[in-house]
């Protein structure tokens, strides 16, 4: 009876907005993500497509795939990503659970702090760990021991990368847990459930979709990560697919088609991971009928609170304090060979950034404005895509959903090549190529997966009955989107925006390839400093960027406190 009324009501009022949004979302993703990925696919099949020729089709496929090292590199990639995802979960889950028992005030503090790992570029982070733990590194100079054998090993790479990536899962899981609230756990406790039972039988299934989709991101980010395996893995002959791809980009002769072929392997792995994620999420799709956005903090014993704080402190020291300390020390050293001596430490490298030609400031402001624009664009597009994927039961949404994970699976260099192939064509009347807008396009393309994953996971938790109730009460689609869904999604959208902002401020690989002549970003600036052997200047620049964008995020967190209903 009820459904009959609903369907009658639906036929009376035409819903034009939803299909229009779907098409808009598809069009945007196809242009931003689809075209460059298609260009890479074509390049893998037709090695001369860059000259508009279909000559020698498929000639790059076999020689590239026949490489004996490829199998071991693929196995290494899978092993590495699986281990990193697992360790990230182990780090993030206890923290996320504890986060929801804190007062919102101290919780936001930890949230801001755990955003820092995103601000540290992975290659800088790896260098920082090297400076800290290598033979005659900082730890040996100060405390007399080094951990070089551990650092240059499989567990070493896994630890460094997991400490960098676990916040992705932490933020997703704690947002999801916040929506669940404490009520279910309280009920279970009344009926005598043990804490472990409450967690594994109630909370875990409820947050599983969020958890699995953030795990997917971490898995795919680890598969795609270049800096850490390159810097640490090279020391003990550990090669992954991405380092093989980068070799093809940098070895003479340059083998772009070969690199594209290898990118295909990553796309296939991403597809498999995506399907697995979809399967798990669908089995555990959780709909909560009553939303609790702002659960009151639990009253807890002093011991429990101290233990919680201790847990956070230990993780924050490992993931934030030690890398930052190492970066700061490197930035303050006049010479690398001088070591940690008072007379070798000064503010010179930091101060030198800002005298002279103002290149450093220009690079910082370019990066910050690009990152801000990338954050706004990606969150808006992601809202659209999430709405289309979660709320509209159209066939096309599966494609849309998969398309949205692809940019993370393909190495930044390959995306950059795809963007050049796409936009450096004579037939475009207008092209962003060779202007700063190509960098914005690249960042939006590379960062889209984060807000899309986070927002669609959050939207999945909001019950459809919420929308239907509004429709029945006579609300238009616009009202539903803006008055009901948007406020509920706002905290997640902001968190996603911060992540995009943080990662874009330090994006390196595609920036180097795509920066138009004369435009510098933070990452290209740092790269040029390292290229000239000025490690301290590069580290100083990284430090300044981390501080500047970090304080922007802290301001944003305060704003978030006000936004929350």
């Amino acid at each position, binding site marked *: 009876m009820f459904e009959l009324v609903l369907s009658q009501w639906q036929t009376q009022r035409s819903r034009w907005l939803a299909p229009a949004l779907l098409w808009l979302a598809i069009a945007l993703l196809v242009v931003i993500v689809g075209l460059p990925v298609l260009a890479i696919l074509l390049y893998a099949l037709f090695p001369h497509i*860059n*000259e*508009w020729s279909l000559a020698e089709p498929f000639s790059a496929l076999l020689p590239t795939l026949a490489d004996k090292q490829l199998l071991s590199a693929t196995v290494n990639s899978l092993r590495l990503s699986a281990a990193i995802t697992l360790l990230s979960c182990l780090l993030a889950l206890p923290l996320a659970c504890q986060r929801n028992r804190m007062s919102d005030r101290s919780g936001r503090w930890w949230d801001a702090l755990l955003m820092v790992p995103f601000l540290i570029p992975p290659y800088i982070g790896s260098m920082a760990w090297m*400076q800290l733990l*290598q*033979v*005659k*590194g900082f730890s040996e100079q100060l405390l007399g021991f080094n951990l*070089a054998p551990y650092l240059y090993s499989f567990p070493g790479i896994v630890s460094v990368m997991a400490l960098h990536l676990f916040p992705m899962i932490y933020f997703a899981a704690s947002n999801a847990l916040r929506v669940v609230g404490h009520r279910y756990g309280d009920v279970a406790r009344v009926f005598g459930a043990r804490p472990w039972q409450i967690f594994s039988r109630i909370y875990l299934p409820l947050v599983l979709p969020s958890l699995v989709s953030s795990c997917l991101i971490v898995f795919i980010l680890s598969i795609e990560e270049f800096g850490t395996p*390159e*810097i640490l893995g*090279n*020391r003990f*002959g550990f090669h992954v697919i991405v380092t093989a791809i980068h*070799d093809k*980009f*940098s*070895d*003479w*002769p*340059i083998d*772009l088609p070969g690199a594209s072929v290898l990118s295909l392997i990553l796309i296939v792995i991403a597809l498999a991971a995506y399907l697995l994620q979809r399967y798990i999420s669908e089995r555990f799709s959780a709909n909560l009928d009553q939303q609790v956005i702002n659960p009151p903090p639990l009253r807890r014993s002093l011991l429990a609170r101290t233990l919680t704080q201790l847990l956070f402190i230990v993780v924050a020291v490992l993931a934030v304090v030690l890398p930052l300390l190492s970066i700061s020390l490197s930035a303050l050293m*006049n*010479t*690398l*060979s*001088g070591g940690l001596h008072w007379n070798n430490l000064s503010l010179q490298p930091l101060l030198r950034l800002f005298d002279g030609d103002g290149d450093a400031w220009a690079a910082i402001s*370019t990066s910050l*404005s*690009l990152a*801000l*624009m990338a954050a*706004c664009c990606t969150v808006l597009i992601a809202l659209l895509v999430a709405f289309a994927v979660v709320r509209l039961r159209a066939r096309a949404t599966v494609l849309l959903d998969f398309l949205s994970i692809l940019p993370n699976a393909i190495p930044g*260099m390959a995306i*950059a*090549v795809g963007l*050049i*192939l796409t936009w*450096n*064509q*004579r037939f475009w009347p207008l092209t962003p190529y*060779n*202007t*700063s*807008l190509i960098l*914005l396009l690249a960042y939006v393309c590379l960062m889209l997966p984060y807000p899309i994953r986070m927002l669609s996971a959050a939207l999945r938790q909001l019950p459809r009955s919420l929308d239907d109730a509004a429709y029945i009460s006579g609300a238009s689609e616009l009202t539903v989107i803006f008055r009901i869904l948007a406020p509920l999604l706002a905290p997640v959208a902001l968190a996603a925006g911060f992540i995009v902002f943080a990662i874009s401020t330090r994006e390196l690989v595609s920036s*180097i*390839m795509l*920066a*138009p*002549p*004369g*435009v510098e970003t933070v990452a290209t600036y740092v790269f*040029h400093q*390292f*290229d*000239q*052997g*000025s*490690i301290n200047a590069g580290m100083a620049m990284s430090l300044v960027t981390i501080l500047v964008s970090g304080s922007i995020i802290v301001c944003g967190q305060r704003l978030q406190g006000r936004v929350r209903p």
Partner: protein
Amino acid sequence: MKKLFAALTVGMVLATPAFATDHLVVYSAGPKPLSSGLAKAFEAKTGIKVDMFEATAGKIMARYEAEKANPQVDVIISAAWADAISLDQAGELLPYHSANAASVPAALQTPNYVAQGAAALAIAYNPQSGLPAPTRWSDLTQPTYKDQVTMPDPAKSGSSLTLVQGLVAKDETAAWKLFEGLAANQTLVPGPNNAAMNPVLQGAKGVVFGAVDYLVIGAKAKGESIEVVYPKDGTVLAPRPMMIIKTSQHQDAAKQFIDFALSEEGQKLVADEFILPARTDIQAKRPGWNDLSIIDFNEAAAAASAAATKAKFAAIMMK
């Protein structure tokens, strides 16, 4: 927010370099002060605007390849002579002989490309490491240097590949024996030039086999504890080729740029970065043409078998 966004968009569009009719696109491999110094001096002298894209040699070539459907670049300055050889063999270079190239050694110029300058490959060691100063390449296979040597990867550094090719061309058996000795000495092959030099500056290792000399001299000038040694048994030059791409829309400007880079003024800018100037009549700020004993070999022939050389090197070192 909307306003800010609009302002930013407008700002970005305005900030992009306007493409004047009289301009030149140059892709150049490091060092940045040299590239931007050359560009600025050239602009001041001719009034032609230079759009300079800087990256590593590999990324420059990757961008060039990806842009083939709509070529943008006029002049490429690479750090790898082999890049010029391959582009030349593919017939993608515009022949040009600069009048200023008269005193550039014959080995450093062809009808289609010419060196801007050159680096020499050397041994670099950290005096603080307490190791004895090496004098020849084979010294580093001695037990004293066990676990103390790094070497840039020929697969990731064109100059390191040139060194391997030069030593192999000089005496093949001796060269491969040398690398076997280095491998037995636990030589670390961590990646490109910086990856090999940093551990030596930081003290984790002591010696670089095959350091790019101007980087070492530059580091020393900044106060780092590092010394450069040119081995007695001869060293190898890694020239930096300059070439005009055939599809260039600004061929006259491109020729003027090559002329300028080879002029006395341009070559002095090269010398300022501790690079060996291509012209023998320009004073170098480091050991010059007469102070180096250089192993001559046929680079084009070596380039043809580069893949095999790299594979053999990898098989020995990564054992």
